[in-house]
């Protein structure tokens, strides 16, 4: 039982990371109907920005302030990057066929990965520790301070996102755009602005995930975004693409099942489980757990 609880805690903390990335996928898919392939790479950039910022702050003692500074800095940098990607690459092809948009996204993803390999070097880097570490024991389950931070920060960000989307005018406009872009435009909503905001928010969440993973598994490399991005996308599909609570649920489920498979079966299947889940979802419930069926109209 203790082992199971321990695995559950590990799974939830990994799942929170997936959930944070999945939110960006699902939000962008909601407004543009685009699988933003570059999203995983934005997460990687977030981790690297966090790495360089914390190297800058390393002279000081690890403290909560510096951790927050690193997190915010990385989120702002990636929000800008996300907006920039949308402006330069996606906006010019938005009216083209969806395939064109998808190929552009693949191109952006390849571009970021390869530039990152040139700039950061292909070798993994080790993330310096940001906050003082401590272990807690609750009912025989070991909780590292990193895990607690990851879960707490993720929950906080998700609550903030929820409030933003449900309570603010911009959030309301975002919901309108994801319901129907054309109708929202006719109602006088500046869709370009809303799409930019969506990219900024999604990228900031991915950056937060990047810094959190840097704290938890202190190893980052320029291609780390690919697998995490893919699994987070699977999480978004599992929860129902376009649905924000679905992305969180999907992320937690994928993270937990991955840790359980590694713990109880074999680590060989680590990468396979997410895709096995994806194929099952596609066969059994293509709209995802919390997604709604959209009838395609001509």
């Amino acid at each position, binding site marked *: 039982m203790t082992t199971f609880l321990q695995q559950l805690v590990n799974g939830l903390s990994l799942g929170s990371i997936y959930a944070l990335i999945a939110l960006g996928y699902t939000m962008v898919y909601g407004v543009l109907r685009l*699988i933003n392939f570059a999203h995983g790479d934005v997460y990687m950039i977030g981790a690297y920005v966090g790495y360089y910022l914390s190297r800058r702050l390393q002279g000081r003692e690890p403290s909560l302030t510096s951790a927050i500074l690193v997190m915010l800095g990385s989120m702002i940098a990636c929000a800008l990057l996300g907006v920039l990607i949308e402006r330069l*690459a996606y906006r*010019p*092809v938005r009216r*083209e*066929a*969806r*395939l*064109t948009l*998808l*190929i*552009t996204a*693949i*191109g*952006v*993803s*390849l*571009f970021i*990965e*390869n*530039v990152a*390999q*040139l700039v950061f070097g292909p070798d993994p880097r080790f993330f310096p520790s940001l906050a003082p570490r401590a272990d807690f024991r609750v009912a025989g389950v070991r909780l590292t301070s990193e895990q607690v931070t990851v879960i707490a920060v993720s929950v906080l960000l998700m609550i903030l996102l929820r409030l933003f989307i449900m309570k603010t005018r911009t959030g309301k406009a975002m919901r309108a755009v994801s319901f129907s872009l054309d109708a929202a435009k006719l109602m006088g909503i500046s869709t370009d602005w809303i799409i930019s905001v969506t990219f900024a928010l999604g990228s900031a969440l991915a950056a937060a995930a990047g810094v959190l993973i840097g704290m938890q598994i202190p190893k980052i490399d320029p291609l780390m975004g*690919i*697998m995490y991005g*893919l699994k987070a*996308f*699977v999480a978004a*599909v599992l929860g129902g693409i376009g649905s924000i609570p679905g992305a969180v649920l999907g992320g937690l489920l994928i993270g937990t099942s991955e840790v359980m498979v590694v713990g109880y079966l074999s680590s*060989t299947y680590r*990468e*396979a489980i*997410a*895709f096995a889940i*994806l*194929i099952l979802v*596609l*066969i059994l419930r*293509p709209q995802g757990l919390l997604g709604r069926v959209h009838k*395609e109209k*001509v």
Partner: protein
Amino acid sequence: MKVWLSAAGVFAGLFVLNGVFMGSLVPGLAMPPYLLQVLCLAGINITLAVSLNLINGFTGQFSIGHAGFMAIGAYASAYFTVTFGQALRSALGFLPPFARDNVVLLVALTIGAVLAAIAGFFVGVPSLRLRGDYLAIVTLGFGEIIRVFILNIDAVGGARGYSGIPKLANFFWIYAFAGLTILVVYRIVHSSFGRTLVAIREDEIAAEAMGVHTTRAKVIAFVVSSALAGVAGGLFAHYLMYVHTNSFTFLRSFEIIIMVVIGGLGSISGSVLGAVLFISLTEGLREFAQYRMVLFSLLLIVLMIVRPQGILGHKEFVTFLTKRRRSIGAAPGTTGNA
């Protein structure tokens, strides 16, 4: 009939060219080994690009796991040759020695193609029922899974790579299969089934309304495309005599996509052009290897913004030059009379 005659002509020409390049026909005219290898890899890339174009270009479904099917073909056919090749060769004692090797190669390639086709079926059925984007993710994931899976099979060398494969493929076979792939895709695209595929690409809902069984058509196209990728993988293994899972990462899939997209989605000659261009650029920029993929990805983005249909668009090379006849499946309203 005309097609088959010209195909026979091409095969005879290839046979002669093969003799010349290998230096066995005209002494002193042999090709430098490096150039010959580049030429042969270009041939394999043509097979890959043209086969991927069937699903990505003509059917409009986006697969990014072509390297996975290539890997299945490579490992399955290599395993067959290494394990049963000798037995088959002695069983074929009544044939002249060089024919024996070629029979072994053909059987191995067939096995690779069949296994890749089966894999294509199981990947295609769940994902092709849904809209295009899901196929992209499933194939990308599948490509990685198959690679990790092979990496863990010790019988084919695992992480050490699979060595000791006899060199059975040569210029002749590589280009014969490239030609065969072009022929197969050409015949499919110009059949009524090909029109079905193009209809799905142009408007899936409309195609369905006209009575097209869209999932069935998409799965058939996907299986054919996978089988041809398996053949390309088999040729790759039997040409280089060594395969490693690192040759079949998603980067390989992306390379094939770049070839197809640069040449033009839905243009067979475009894919050939794309494959040749890609290989020439790759080999030409060898000194700037680390900037190569940066350049290619940038090219992909700029191409999508400036000319999303690729260099040749939906047209074939000849129609592209004359621009008079309507090419198969050009976008409605953009071309003249049929």
